[in-house]
Structure formats: structure tokens, C-alpha cells
């Protein structure tokens, strides 16, 4: 059980950032992950008074505040129209509606959890992460960094012509995923994000040009095989390494076929 000595509702990002430089202090997102810890927190820093709970849709981009909940991502019409429903699909099996009303985008990404559906989806979206101190980075670079004492302020998803497909395999509906897989084609470039390997999600592009001549059953299969050869996996109680690698191949192939308009998959 986490204990907290003092609770502060931050009045500015600067105040939150300064408080967060103290090791015993913690920023609160939805507090769902934190609550499973046994941390002795000195000051809990609540970001909920800073207006970061909105998804703003502009002409060129979506700006998603750190305190936006997973349920907001699931229900946002613009974001789901842009991603052809993939955004909703990426979060809708995370525990339950009550949980998704609390879990935040900031907490979900900042934790860089291995099992994260959210990180997998934002990698395929080629999103940008705005940090209070370090400025704006690509989600790929952010994912590779070790968590520090910075603040995640918002995530930006640029609107570029794109198609997106999200899939996950779970042993039961609301369990942590055994494998997550998001594929996209944005401005002509293919991206594949695979998470819950069970390690943190990684991003793969079509470096070998396997899809350069277009999506066909053969090219989708070849890209799936390439992904299975390239994406490292390992085993844990949810699935063996061999099973996960097989899933990488099958989900990638299906995802690519679906990107190409085949909704029945391989």
C-alpha cells in the first residue's frame, strides 16, 4: 500500500516540476499503477488542476493533454475517425470502463510499461511527446529513454494521410496482453509496433522494401516473416517465446492485409 504524507494540487507546471525533483515526491496520473506500489511518498503532486485533461483537435494535429483518460481516447470521435477506430481498439480491453475513466495518457506513457497497449498505439501513430523540461521528442526516442523526473505535458498526433490497424492477443478479455501489434501507413511509410513481447514495445519500418510494390497476400506474409525474425520476444506466464514469435508473424501479416483493405485477415 502506497503512503502519502502531503497532497498538493499543482498550480503551475513549474511548481509541479520543481516538486518532482525531490526523490520522495511523485506525480499522480490516474494513480492506478502507483497504487499497486508500496512507495512511501512524501508529496503527491496532482496535475489535475492544470487543464491537461482535454483532447484538442486542430486542422493539422490532435493535442492530447497528459491527464486525458484512456476512456476519452476511446470515445473521441475525431481521433477515432482519423485512426479508423484503431485508437478505441487499443484501449477498450484495459480492465474496465471505471479503470479507463481514471488511467491517464501521461501515466500510461511515462511508465513505458512493457505490456502497454497505449505505447504500442502511439508508436504506430508516430506521435510526438512534449516534456516540460526536455521539450518535444518523437515517441520512439521517448520510449527508449529511462524514466527521469521530467513531466509529460501532452502528446501530439499530426494529421497526415494514414491508415491504422490495432490488434492484441489476451488470454482473457481484460487481462494484460500477451502481445500487442499496431501497424500503420502514414504518408506512405509503413510502421509496425509490437509490445508486450513481454518487453517494451519496439518499432519496425519496412527497411527491406518488402511492401514497396504494394500489399498482396505474398508481401504481407513476407513482412510478417521479417517481423518474426527481427522482433525479439521472450516467454513469461502469459505465453512462451515461440508462441509470441508466432503471434508476431500472424498479427503483422493480418494487420498489413487489413491496412490494404482485407478485413478478414490471413
Amino acid at each position: 500500500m502506497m503512503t502519502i504524507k502531503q497532497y498538493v494540487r499543482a498550480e503551475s507546471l513549474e511548481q509541479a516540476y520543481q516538486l518532482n525533483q525531490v526523490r520522495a515526491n511523485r506525480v499522480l496520473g490516474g494513480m492506478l499503477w502507483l497504487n499497486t506500489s508500496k512507495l512511501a511518498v512524501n508529496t503527491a503532486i496532482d496535475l489535475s488542476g492544470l487543464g491537461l485533461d482535454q483532447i484538442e483537435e486542430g486542422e493539422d494535429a490532435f493535442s492530447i493533454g497528459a491527464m486525458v483518460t484512456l476512456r476519452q481516447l476511446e470515445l473521441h470521435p475525431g481521433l477515432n475517425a482519423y485512426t479508423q477506430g484503431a485508437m478505441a481498439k487499443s484501449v477498450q480491453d484495459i480492465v474496465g470502463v471505471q479503470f479507463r475513466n481514471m488511467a491517464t495518457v501521461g501515466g500510461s506513457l511515462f511508465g513505458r510499461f512493457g505490456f502497454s497497449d497505449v505505447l504500442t498505439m502511439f508508436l504506430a501513430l508516430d506521435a510526438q511527446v512534449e516534456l516540460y523540461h526536455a521539450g518535444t521528442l518523437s515517441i520512439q526516442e521517448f520510449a527508449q529513454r529511462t524514466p527521469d523526473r521530467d513531466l509529460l505535458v501532452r502528446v501530439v498526433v499530426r494529421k497526415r494521410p494514414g491508415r491504422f490497424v490495432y490488434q492484441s492477443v489476451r488470454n482473457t478479455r481484460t487481462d494484460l496482453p500477451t502481445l500487442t501489434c499496431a501497424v500503420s501507413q502514414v504518408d506512405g511509410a509503413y510502421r509496425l509496433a509490437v509490445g508486450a513481447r513481454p518487453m517494451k514495445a519496439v518499432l519496425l519500418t519496412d527497411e527491406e522494401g518488402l511492401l514497396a510494390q504494394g500489399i498482396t497476400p505474398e508481401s504481407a506474409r513476407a513482412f510478417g516473416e521479417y517481423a518474426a525474425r527481427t522482433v525479439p520476444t521472450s516467454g513469461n506466464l502469459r505465453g512462451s517465446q515461440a508462441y509470441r514469435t508466432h503471434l508476431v508473424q500472424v498479427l503483422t501479416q493480418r494487420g498489413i492485409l487489413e491496412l490494404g483493405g482485407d478485413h478478414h485477415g490471413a
Partner: protein
Amino acid sequence: MELKLTLNGRAVTAQIEADTLLLDFVRSHGCTSVKRGCETTNCGLCTVLLDGKPVLSCATLAARAAGRTVTTLEGLQEEAADFVGFIADQGADQCGFCNPGFVMNTIALLRENPDPTDDDIRAYLAGNLCRCSGYEGQLRGIRAYLDSRKG
């Protein structure tokens, strides 16, 4: 620290610790329908409505509810009475421990979507676990209630 909020329509002022959970706060204010089932945010037994939205009170700081409206089953007796009989008629509950969480989340579902399909109901209630039943009774009960409304 001092906390002011509205609990089931009543203004409440109380002294709390920084880490008092909303679950313990509402229980200490007589709302014992709200239960601690798992404490790991998996079971939905501790569901309350915070400004009308269902959340898990086992992972919500009471301090975060300052100035907001918290509703528990104690404050929703009339709305619940509409459909709980239909669930009971199906013999859906065995020990009944999960029932308040199911009822709270069903209220939230029906406010958001008054005419859900069976899949909508399953998806919305996926975060409410029952250790005794196979969920079919609860689903049949809600379906029977919805059908009865259509006359």
C-alpha cells in the same frame, strides 16, 4: 487536511489524511455498499460515481474529490430499484458481494447508453468481476429489464 465535497446530495466537510482513499472515506460516512474486493483495481466492487462518471474508489484519493460530487448506491436507490428486481428474478447473484458494483456500473451504462446491445452491456461491465456466477444471469436480468421498457 480538510475535505469538502458533496456525497449523495449532501454537503460534507471532514478532516482526512493525504492518503485517505475515497473508498475508506465513503465507508466511514455510512456508505457501506462500497466494498473493498481486490484493492488492485481489477474487480469493480468499489465503484462510485465521481461527477457522474464511474471510477474505482480503491485507487482514488479522497483529496482528489474536493469540490466534486460523489454518488454511491445509497444515493441511487430509486434509479437502481428500476432494474435490480430483474437481476434477482434471474437468480443472478449467489453470495451477492459483487452486486453493488454491478448495479452502480449498470446505472452508469444506462445513463450513457439507454438502449445497449448485449455486446455493449458485456463491454461496459467487463471491469466488474463476480466470483460465483458466469455473468449470464446478470446479462439476462438487464436484458429483461430493457425489453420490459420497450413493452
